[in-house]
């Protein structure tokens, strides 16, 4: 259930400018609207894109979110690679890395 809530928050942030503005002015208040685990809250609080990837956020949601948070393409890919090295494999969802995250265009 919690991964669902985490993805719901990012989905709303990705598509709704009003939620984006609320997030920018009072991030904690927005986070409090979703039933998240402590680990998920920490990742959102710290813009930890790599950790969000490990937690299983759908890659399409996370790619848009990372762009909105200002990560350049290479930084975004690197954040996922670094998180794999730090935290181990992706814990849920469809977007698990293959080949231990090696290869690719970046």
């Amino acid at each position, binding site marked *: 259930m919690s991964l669902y809530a985490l993805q719901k928050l990012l989905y709303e942030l990705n*598509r709704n400018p009003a939620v984006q503005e609320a997030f920018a002015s009072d991030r904690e208040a927005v986070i409090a609207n979703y039933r998240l685990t402590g680990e998920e809250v920490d990742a959102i609080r710290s813009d930890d894109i790599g950790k969000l990837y490990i937690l299983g956020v759908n890659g399409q949601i996370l790619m848009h979110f990372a762009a909105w948070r200002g990560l350049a393409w290479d930084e975004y890919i690197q954040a996922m*690679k670094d998180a794999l090295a730090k935290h181990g494999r992706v814990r849920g969802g469809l*977007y698990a890395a*293959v080949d231990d995250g090696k290869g690719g*265009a970046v």
Partner: protein
Amino acid sequence: MSLVFAAIMSHGPGMTARADRADPAVRDPFFATLARLRNALESSRPDAIIVIAAEHFANFFMNNMPAYCIGMAEDYEGPIEDPDWLQIPRRTIPGAPDLSRRIVGKVMDRVDVAYAEEWKFDHGVMVPLSFLTPRFDLPVIPVNINCQGPPLTPLHRAYEFGIAMGEACESVPERVAIVGTGGISHWPATPNSGKINEAWDREFLRRWLRNDRVALTAYSDEETLRDAGQGGFEIRTLISVAGACQGRTGEVWFCEPIPIFATSGFAAVMDVGGDGADAAA
């Protein structure tokens, strides 16, 4: 009347966002092929274009996920992504609400579909339109097939949905073009982005150009995930265009891996007869 134009093409955001980083030896002929596709589309003199895309959580979420949804709005806004990131300015794109309504009604003879009078376009629609209708002036009817949140519609249903779309277009007097976007093999939005299974792509397109319904729908999702990545689930959009052109065969105009685009750059057309096909020849 019957479809005046039917094609499939890739829609990776890298095609606009990272175009400058692609190898010109592959990128330039790919973009030239897309210009040829645009010419063929224009020569077919469409009144509207149906874009069957696999969207990426721009509109639909797992709180209420339709397997199939057809847009019925007066207009649409896009891209939902940061325009500076996608390199496509945000704009309003005209819809075709009356035509949409008639098509939805006819499709329902065969397939249960959702419809939506609000819809924001993401790269799955915006990137193809930026090449095919760069003035964004041709009325658009967006169609989504859920390729992101399992359970996903089976491939044989995607083909059946395409048949329903083709019949619906035949039932209206307007000249309708249809384009399917997405796929083929890719591992997008992962550390492996840029991994491409070229042999799998070519085999899929061989099945597509033959419009081989049995072969096109023979992949299991387990096989697709293993051999073509989670991005491979988007073949549903391409299969539905084959369904819309049941009995017709096609031609592949371009297919080459372009890793920084995260997929093969590809473009293929179905022979629907008429002016568009003449221009394509």
